[in-house]
């Protein structure tokens, strides 16, 4: 089964996301911030990274840039609920970085699963 790394500082959201994916039998590992996420990825690379954008210690955009540099083939879905700007604004940046897909929080389970399926299969 494909391995998915979730990086999000919001515990409730992170757990929900994990549950949604695990119900579809994906293997899920989680990190609570960008630094931890990169550490985990280095130790044990995942097939897909789902990362929040606004996080403490290391933000999502930094994470994406670092992973892309270190692991050019990495697959990433960026998710955001907005911060000082709207979610669209942050995700626009991510699109410019050309990392794969973006999702605006809160999204439907179907949207997410469809996107994951397209990127890593079942």
């Amino acid at each position, binding site marked *: 089964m494909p391995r998915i790394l979730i990086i*999000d500082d*919001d515990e*409730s*959201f992170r*757990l*929900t*996301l994990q*549950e*949604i994916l695990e*119900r579809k039998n994906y293997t899920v590992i989680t990190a609570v911030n960008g630094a931890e996420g990169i550490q985990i990825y280095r130790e044990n690379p995942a097939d897909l990274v789902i990362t929040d954008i*606004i996080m403490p210690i290391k933000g999502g955009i930094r994470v994406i840039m670092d992973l892309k540099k270190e692991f050019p083939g990495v697959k990433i879905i960026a998710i*955001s*609920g*907005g*911060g*000082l*700007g*709207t*979610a*669209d*604004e942050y995700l*626009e940046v991510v699109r410019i970085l050309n990392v794969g897909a973006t999702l605006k*929080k*809160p*999204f*439907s*389970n*179907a949207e997410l699963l469809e996107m994951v399926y397209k990127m890593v299969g079942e």
Partner: protein
Amino acid sequence: MIHYFQTILNSMTDPLFVLGADAKISLANKATVKLLGYSPSELIGRDVSLLFADPKNVPLKDELFLRFQQDGLLRQFEATWKTKDGDTIPVLLSCSVIEAAAGSPPVDDLTPSAKLGGFLPRRGLVCVAKDITEWKSAQALLSESEERFRMIFDMAPDAIYMKSGGNFTYLNPAALKLFGASRPEELIGKSMWDFFHPDSFETIRERVKQLQSMPGGAVPFSEQKYLRLDGTTVEVETTAAPVRFQGQQGVVVFIRDITERRKMIAEMLSDKVKLDLALKSSGMGVWSYELRKNLRIFDAQVCRILGIDPESFHGSAEEFINIVHPQDRESIQSALQQTIASGQSYAVEYRVVWPDQSVHYICARGQLVRDASGQPVKVKGVIWDVTERKQAEEDKENLQQQFFQAQKMESIGTLASGVAHNFNNILGSIRGCAEMALDDVAPSSRTRRDLERIVQGVESAQKLTEQILSFSRSAKQEIRDVAIRPIIKNAVEMFRASLKGAVEIRESFNSENAVVSVDPNQMQHMILNILTNSYQAIDKAGGVIEVGLSRMNMDARAIARIAALKTGEWVELTIKDNGCGMDSATKERIFEPFFTTKELGQGTGLGLSLVYGVITGYGGKIIVESFPLQGTTFHIFLPCKNYPL
């Protein structure tokens, strides 16, 4: 012959007597006898000194008698007679030498002297006496009156002097003081011309000529300069009249020292000049209200300040009160009445409306003026224009309010964005969990319907957080120069289509080529938002929404009204409804985020705050005018340029 002569002598009313060379009375007429009370026999042959109260001082016997003998001329002198009873009588004696003609018979031959009551000497003195008692008392009266006049002259506060032949002949004490002399001798006999200031020579010469040509008259007052004994100059005002004094033609001159008065006038003039200058430079005007005539008297400056044409203003109460702003009429009238009744200072501020309808703020101060009996006669005072100050105060207040508003909005915006971020995370988990639960329940179950409602609620909440974030103005805008008219036209068309005729929308656009810098989609969204608000405020049939667009040039006055806009070209969009309107408390809060008058769940309370944020972001301004039951008007001002045609 003798009888004839005797009759003449005795019929004379004045006493006549003849003295012989030995100064003995040789003849005396009846009048003499009568006046003195002696019988003829008591007189004849007696020494003349018998007649006099003070014989020693009578010159008859001595040198005078001798002189009579020498030249025989008539002599006159005063003497005091003493009657037999001891009374004294002042007399004027006229004496001449009498002498028998050469070759005439001796006296003894000539007269049986008894017949004449005496005898005639060959050589003697014939004296006629005149009783001058009355003349003397008249003389005494005269000198008393002279004394009185002298006293008046001496006491006179004004200087008076007399001159004759160009020299001082008399000076009163005030004149001595004026010239700086302590005794008259220092000046009497001196030439006047030494005491005239050369500047006044010509005037004085002219006046001397006038006096000579108009005997009996006085020359009018004129101002001159005199010199004192110490050479200093004194400014005087003089008048003069010709007089006879001590037997000589002269002039009496009345002088008043006007040095003090001059100084006072100069000070008053300079005070008046200063006052005028102060009034002029302060822009103050002077007014007075005459109580008895009910008349207002305004100077030119007051007319200018009040916007009155001085030519057509008559000063009536109606004329004045008509130019005063209706809301201020009562207060200034009661203030005036209070001043008149109590005498307290009049201090008011009021507005006047000029003929061009412009409103000017006036500050007035005044005082009650009473007549000698204490009756109020007028209120007198000044006014000045305080329009600029008032506008500045209003501007300041507006700016302050806007600043507070902006500050409030900004802090709310910051808060909102933070809230939105966390909100989306929470919503994300709710939605995720709800959808997972949906997968687990049977399609017909009630739990499924509940879960679906959770998901719908999350979707609404999602829209709201999106709006919150837009409000925090981090929403990406595509601002460009666009013609404003088509944007509004589009928005109105879209809105009209959605209404399906429920409300009438009237348009009046007269701003063909105005170009504004906005995000066209956002702008359209803003207009729709306001139109929706207006529509929702209309709760009755016959609702009308008027949408207007017009160009305006912001002059200083318009800015004072709207506040905080820069001068220049602006376009004003108005959206006016005839709906339920708002009270002032509601009006104040309508641009606050989350403020809503709608029922819970019907509105987010973000629409108008969003409009506010966006319009402010365009450098524009939105204000709202509304009263309960009178509808609401939104005014949106945007800076504009001309579309290049």
